[in-house]
Structure formats: structure tokens, C-alpha cells
């Protein structure tokens, strides 16, 4: 089961440490550029769209929908659902859908962020609402 799975500890670095510190408080952060207004994920210090360095941290709603997914039927740690999900704020990201009936997943399905522990900061996953 997903809960029993051992996930890698984020290495973190000066550019991303604020994300992981917020994760420990259960806050899912994205970056937004105050020059062009675009949000992005994963977080960068310089906007990948307009290349401005005026990017700021913003707490995201944690709400998302499934863009696409695939069920990995066999692996060393058991079956899992990998997915791209699109955040309410706009950016899409890679994740796993956990605590769900894998055979009932559908593109467009509504999700919310959940956290899974590691030996360091927790990692964001998504689960159907």
C-alpha cells in the first residue's frame, strides 16, 4: 500500500528549501512571477516564461484535476498510479494518486493534495475528493 511505501528524502537546495519548510507545515507552495503574472511548478528563482527574477512564493489551494494517468501494474513496491495533475492555479505537475480505487480513476477527476512522510520533509501526493 502507498502508506507503507518508503519515499526518498528530498535533498533540497537554497532555491527550493522554502517549499520544503512550508511542506512541513502542510502548506503546498508554488512560485508566481510578479512581472508577467504566471505561476509555475516546480519552483525556480527565475521565471521560466519571462526570465524575470521577481518570483514570489504563494500558497496554492491544493485542489487539482487529473490531466492524465497510467496504472503501473507491477513494480518492486506494488502497483501505483502515476499522473499529471493540473492545479486550480494553473500549473500541471507529475505525482501519484494515492488512497484511491485505481480502476475508477478518470481524466478530469477532482483531487486534493495529501502529504506522505519521508525521513525529511514530506512529499506532496494527490487523492480523489
Amino acid at each position, binding site marked *: 500500500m502507498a502508506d507503507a511505501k518508503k519515499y526518498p528524502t528530498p535533498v533540497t537546495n537554497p532555491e527550493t528549501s522554502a517549499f520544503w519548510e512550508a511542506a512541513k507545515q502542510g502548506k503546498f507552495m508554488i512560485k508566481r512571477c510578479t512581472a508577467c503574472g504566471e505561476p509555475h511548478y516546480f519552483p525556480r528563482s527565475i521565471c521560466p516564461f519571462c526570465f524575470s527574477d521577481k518570483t514570489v512564493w504563494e500558497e496554492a489551494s491544493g485542489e487539482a484535476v487529473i490531466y*492524465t494517468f497510467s496504472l503501473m501494474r507491477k513494480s518492486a513496491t506494488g502497483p501505483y498510479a502515476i499522473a499529471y495533475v493540473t492545479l486550480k492555479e494553473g500549473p500541471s505537475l507529475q505525482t501519484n494518486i494515492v488512497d484511491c480505487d485505481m480502476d475508477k480513476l478518470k481524466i478530469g477527476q477532482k483531487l486534493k493534495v495529501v502529504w506522505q512522510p519521508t525521513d525529511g520533509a514530506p512529499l506532496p501526493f494527490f487523492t480523489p475528493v
Partner: protein
Amino acid sequence: MTIKGKAYIAGIYEHPTRHAPDKSTAQLHAEVAKGAIEDAGLTKADIDGYFCAGDAPGGVMPMVDYLGLKVRHFDSTDTGGCSYLVHLGHAAEAIAAGKCSIALVTLAGKPRTGPMPPRSSGAEADFELAYGATTHNVYGMCAMRHMHDYGTTSEQLAWIKVAASHHAQYNPHAMLKEVVTVEDVLNSPMISDPLHRMDCCVVTDGGGAMIVTTPEIAKSLKKPLVRLIGHGEAMKGPRGGKDLDLTYSAGVWSGPRAFEEAGVTPKDIKYASIYDSFTITVLMQLEDIGFCKKGEGGKFVADGNLISGVGKLPFNTDGGGLCSNHPVNRGGMTKILEAVRQLRGEAHPKVQVKNCDLAIAHGTGGLLGVRHAASTCILERV
């Protein structure tokens, strides 16, 4: 400045092995290099340029030393399975600029004998590695969304494997020589939805090599003349997660660039080598480089349209990665080699395309649903 007609493929070699526990990876590189040099009618001392990618043990410096080369130009661009399609374009650029005159490109490795080293990652590592992205499930996600957006079906994808198997039956070196049906593909075990086992390519040890040279040198040799007349390359990634669309690849940019340089259109192509890591890879590439409209790939590949002598676009007549060979999990080299065989008239008689004077070799490398590159090469018989 164009590379059109400025570089010829004068030598090719595909290692016949598909399982090589008794050989080293460097040895396989040397064996395919020797094969391509001999096919061209040259000697090792003639080589003055060398190209290799991440499969070469230790990279370009140890390989040049191991092979005993003396080169004045080298390039170790690594874009996964399409690296060698990129190398062909880059070799043509170097030859056109006078930086080298006879370039050797090699690929070899042994994923069937033992596990491959883990894929390296970039700045995204903390934000992606935990989620278990593999080739199977990432291409699965592309197929899932393509089906959702365009109504593509598993039956249509299966036709790609069926066509490859029809060709592989004539290749004595093919790993899978048995002709399969759409039902066989659909009844094979689900690996990562919606991709079945028979939607996936083979895993093989082995390799291949080619010699790229100037028009003057190629004309002084004895092989039929095959030249590069157009090349394009491009990259695509999630780019901050904005407007994510997994139903198209970087081929939408590399393909048109290659066709424009060549001065031909997809309708002119007589034979197509299309990277086939999975059936969905072929379907998306055919759409992206312009053989049909986006979303119509399913209809295009159905009912044997890719089978030589049956359909309108004969593809991967060696059996491709789906049935014959996918050395080192990198299919770009074998795509070029079969295109050259077709243009030389050296393909198996049962799959040889009549009067084959214009061919395309196209591939993607990396992970199609994540970060990948694409390279398109248009080749002409002179």
C-alpha cells in the same frame, strides 16, 4: 548555410547479436565500428571525427583512446535514443564546415545482460523522482491522454505492432520473428495502462554504427550513394507546467525544419523509419512530422497501412524496435541503418520498397511524456 547534400552515409553496420553476455560494452562499440568502416571500404586511420552518446563507456575520451582513433572533431551530445539521429545532423554540419571529413558514429550496450545505470536527473529531481516515472508509465500517460482527446483505440495502436511483426518475419536477426495479430496484442498482459506488453519494444544487447563523409569521398567508394538532405532537431518539456499537452512531441518542430531544408514533403517519402519504443511513440510521431493530421494517427496506422507492399507508408521494415532490435534501449541508430538499406536496395526482398529514393529516419529520445528531444533526418539516394 544548409547541410543539404553535403554529407553522405558511406558505411553502416548493425551487430547481429541480441544477447551478448560474453562481450564487453566497449568491445561491442569496437565491433560495430569495424563493421561500418569495412562496409564503407575504409580503414580506421581514415576516421577524423567521432560521435558517441551516453552508452559509450566513460564517454568520448575513453572511447577515442580504446578504439585507437586520432580525431580532429568529436561530439558526445546525449539525447537518449535519438542521439544518433542528432549525431548524423551534427556530423553533416561538421563536414560542411570542414571540421572533419570521415566521421564515425557508434552505439552499443548490454541491457539484456544486466541492469542499466539509473537515468540522471536535473533540477526537477526532488519534485519528480519519488513518483516512479518509468518509460512504460510515462508513455502510457501519453497514450491515455491521446485516447481521451482524439478517440484513439488500443486496436489502432496494435496495428503498429502487427505491421512491425510482418516485417520482422524476414529478418533472421530479429528477436521476435513471429507474425502477430491485433487480438494477440490486445490479449497480451497490461503493463501500464493503456499499453500492453506487445505495445512495448524489445530489450536487446547489441549496437550499430555508421560512417558519414563528404560527397567527394563517398563517390570514390563502392557503395550506392545515400545522402542527408534535411535535418531538424528540437526539445520539449513540461516547462513550468504551463499548458501541458502530452499528445504532441518535439517532432512538431524537428519535422518541418527537416522537410523545409530538404525541399520535400511527407507525401514524397517512400519509406519511413519511425522510432518505436512503444506503439504510441510511432502514432504520435507520424502525426507530429506531418504524415497525417494531429489526432488522425489511429486511422492512419490501421488496416496494415504501415506494412511494406500492403499500405501507403512502409515503416521499420527490419521489424524495428518492437520486434527486431532496440540496442541499449536506444533506437535511433537502427532507424538510420534500415533507411540506408532501403535506399541502397539492400533491404530483404520481401520488404524492399520499389524504387526507394527518398526516406525519413525520425526519433525521439528521453521520455516522451516528460523531457525529450526529437531529431528528423531526410535521406536521398543519389
